[in-house]
């Protein structure tokens, strides 16, 4: 009976105290790291006599004495607290976990001083691996710091009674400091000695509340990660640890980590690879609620044109923190961008939700706008951060934008004469431009061509032109496409365009194309009806000439594109965003009315003779209105005198 009871007791397995943990180094513990001969537990850290310090009667020497520069400490542009040197209990943990002192090196053993206990397998210092933090603590969660809660709304002190606690630091008696023992209790049998379960990031969220995280796409994800992971943990289950590593983070300053080290950048731990851990082919399992795995963005960023996230490593401080990032210091380097310049991974939603949830942007008026619970950013406000006044990840201050490129914020001002309808419906309210026949009241009639559901009251997104080319399978807004992943991440077309848009120009003596092909301008025809450009009479665009030169040739788009010159759209609509920064066009008497997005490519030259209407010699190709209020062009194409002074007159049907 007694024997049975004994067997039962032994059969219960490891005791639920420190003896059942890896910190039990006793010879009989069965742990991989264990002593030879010494069958005690506590003695590897504690001694009743002759301790290094009274609390907690520490039986080991420490790796350093008074803050010498033994450790490289965590630092970050978003860190508000100072981390000077390990203090308090953290020093004790480091005496093994920094790998400098032998695990068996004790101050006292059986009343003998300074003993080194031999370990099984010849182990001396902490073997290489995740538990060996080393003396480089830059990639570990900061310790021995007094959290500066006032400086950061996304930091809070652990509530009273929480297992996560502040501990004593450099001020005796003051429990005000984050130490190893804030999150770990070295005696606990729980996983990694955590003071509480970190399922779904519960431990991290004790101090890092991260507003907006609950219900965000990443938090709600039911996709398993890794895709075939042994425990079936989902991204949401992993919580913070899906992207962050409190120890041995590969990207030091944000403690990021990735399992995807195979992506071909010279810095495998670059922050974009953290995203690619999931956002690659087969990166996660299929989220049953969404019927698909995490969108494969890695492939997008490997395409011909893409937002160059790979050019820099962890270059940009996320703008969704409470910190003002340091301004870009060198403006002459190659354009670069980071995932966090457009997305806040703590709050991001999936389409049709707000992919820019929790971001900051720049408004049409140039001010900073914040996506919060009340206001959603508009997509272009995110784009303006780089494609506006400055390469600014924030406002203000921002360095002045260097010369070159165009300022999209100015281009899309609704007060402009002409612009693609991004901020507001366009100024050209002609029904002939759009590919939908709509009623004068603006209501769709139901016979919208190609079903693109656009009319003259519509607005479009930047991403309706700049997007994954797979979305070209559907006319109209790219968001109507069943293909993905959507967004201006990368495209096999030039300029990150959603579909082909050729800007090839000819040379003197040769037309740009051998013949007209709509595929050269497939991008435009996703929204604009090609038949409007090529048709005659009713179905024509309002760029026409009454009594044109031959049947069907009164449609001057047809004339330019097909019949005469095989021109590209680009020749006359050089900047399709807007006319506002047109540098090669002399507008005569048209500004303030409408300019039909006409602005000439650089190879279009001014006409070498006097203007027939005004007698002057414009220095630039002219697009104007005659004294009789009739539009006309006055210019040379490809160095050829294409105009005879009569045919330059453009006659709208409804002046």
């Amino acid at each position: 009976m007694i024997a049975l009871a004994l067997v039962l007791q032994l059969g219960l397995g490891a005791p639920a105290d420190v003896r059942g943990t890896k910190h039990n180094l006793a010879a009989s513990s069965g742990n991989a790291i264990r002593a030879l001969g010494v069958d005690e537990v506590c003695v590897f850290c504690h001694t009743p006599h002759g301790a290094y310090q009274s609390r907690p009667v520490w039986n080991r020497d420490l790796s350093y004495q008074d803050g010498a520069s033994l450790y490289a400490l965590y630092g970050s542009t978003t860190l508000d607290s100072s981390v000077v040197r390990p203090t308090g209990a953290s020093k004790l943990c480091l005496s093994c976990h920094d790998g400098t002192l032998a695990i068996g090196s004790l101050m006292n053993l059986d009343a003998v001083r300074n003993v080194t206990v031999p370990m099984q397998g010849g182990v001396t210092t902490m073997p290489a691996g995740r538990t060996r933090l080393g003396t480089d603590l830059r990639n570990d969660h900061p310790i021995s710091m007094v959290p500066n809660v006032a400086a950061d709304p996304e930091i809070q002190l652990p509530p009273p009674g929480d297992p996560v606690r502040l501990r004593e630091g450099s001020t005796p008696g003051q429990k005000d400091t984050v130490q190893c023992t804030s999150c770990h209790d070295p005696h606990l049998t729980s996983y990694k000695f955590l003071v509480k379960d970190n399922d779904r990031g519960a431990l991290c969220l004790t101090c890092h509340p991260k507003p907006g995280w609950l219900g965000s796409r990443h938090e709600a994800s039911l996709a398993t990660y890794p895709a075939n992971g042994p425990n079936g943990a989902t991204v949401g289950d992993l919580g913070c640890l899906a992207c962050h590593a409190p120890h041995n983070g590969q990207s030091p300053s944000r403690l990021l980590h990735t399992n995807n080290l195979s992506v071909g950048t010279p810095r495998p731990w670059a922050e974009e690879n953290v995203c690619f851990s999931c956002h690659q082919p087969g990166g996660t399992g299929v989220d049953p609620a969404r019927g698909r795995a995490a969108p494969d963005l890695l492939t997008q960023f490997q395409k011909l044109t893409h937002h160059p996230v790979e050019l820099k490593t962890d270059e940009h401080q996320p703008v969704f923190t409470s910190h003002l990032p340091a301004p870009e210091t060198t403006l002459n380097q190659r354009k670069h961008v980071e995932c966090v310049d457009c997305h806040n991974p703590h709050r991001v939603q999936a389409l049709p939700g707000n992919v820019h949830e929790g971001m900051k942007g720049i408004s049409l008026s140039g001010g900073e706008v914040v996506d919060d619970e009340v206001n959603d950013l508009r997509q272009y406000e995110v784009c303006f951060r780089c494609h506006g006044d400055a390469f600014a990840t924030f406002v203000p201050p921002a360095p002045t934008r260097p010369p070159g490129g165009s300022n999209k914020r100015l281009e899309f001002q609704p007060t402009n004469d002409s612009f693609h309808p991004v901020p507001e419906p366009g100024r050209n309210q002609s029904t002939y431009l759009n590919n939908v026949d709509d009623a004068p009241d603006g209501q769709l009639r139901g016979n919208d061509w190609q079903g693109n559901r656009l009319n003259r009251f519509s607005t479009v997104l930047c991403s309706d032109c700049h997007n994954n080319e797979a979305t070209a399978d559907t006319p109209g807004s790219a968001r109507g496409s069943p293909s993905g992943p959507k967004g201006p991440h990368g495209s096999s077309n030039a300029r990150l365009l959603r579909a082909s848009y050729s800007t090839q120009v000819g040379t003197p003596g040769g037309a740009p194309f051998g013949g007209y092909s709509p595929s050269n301008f497939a991008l435009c025809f996703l929204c604009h009806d090609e038949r409007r450009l090529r048709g005659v009479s009713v179905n024509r665009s309002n760029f026409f000439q009454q009594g044109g030169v031959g049947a069907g040739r009164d449609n001057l788009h047809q004339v330019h594109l097909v019949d005469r010159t095989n021109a590209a759209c680009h020749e006359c609509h050089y900047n399709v965003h807007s006319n506002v920064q047109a540098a090669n066009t002399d507008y005569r008497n048209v500004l303030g009315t409408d300019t039909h997005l006409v602005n000439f490519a650089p190879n279009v030259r001014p006409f070498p003779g006097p203007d027939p209407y005004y007698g002057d010699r414009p220095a630039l190709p002219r697009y104007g209105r005659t004294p009789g209020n009739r539009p006309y062009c006055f210019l040379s194409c490809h160095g050829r005198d294409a105009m005879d002074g009569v045919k330059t007159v453009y006659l709208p049907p409804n002046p």
Partner: protein
Amino acid sequence: MTAAARLLVVAALAAPPPPRASLLDASRHNFFGPGAHAPDAAIDLCQFCHVPNRLPGAAAPPPRWAPDAPPQAAALDVRADPHGQPLPLRFAGSTLRCLSCHDSTVSRIAIPFRPSSTSLRGDEVAADRHRRDAPGDAYLAIPDGWAGRVMGNHPVGVPYPLGSGGYRLYGPRASPLGTDDWQADPRLRGLKLFSDRSGFVLPAGGAGVECASCHDPHGTPHRPFLRLPKARSELCLGCHAK
């Protein structure tokens, strides 16, 4: 005056259990040498630690420099100083017995001296000095002035949270002790607690840890004079539920 004239009143000595006696006999705490005994069996080995109690004034002549001293001054144990501060010890009776020899003179082992000799750094000294007691409150406190003396050692002269979860560790700003960290009654495991009233009943909040909580100076099978074996840290875990 002969030894026989003295009256021993130390209760524990009245009837020492024989097995203990034999262990003591062979131990290093037999200062006559292993197996040796005093010719006078009445005091024998006990006197080395337990000071034989003499009736005040029974034998000693009055001190010549102060022949008129009151009778109570005839006892050495006039420890209470009516004008001075008392020693900051709560339960220290038995611990003083230990420390009065363990200073590397009579005893080779000088427990309370050794820690700082090699290891305690200046900042730790300062830190220990800042730990203070809050009298009258339920702190598992190291008494003022005492911390520095036993620094580097397991605390002695401190209360044990017996039957009370209201203790805090080392001072008023400290976090409350989780009762989960402590065995409910280490006496059940063979360890010993002491009362600050020298009684055998330990009131909640009045149970203290002394050297002899873990050590039995009368000899045990577990060196050095341990009440429980060190193997798999049975001794430590007798109090600490870690």
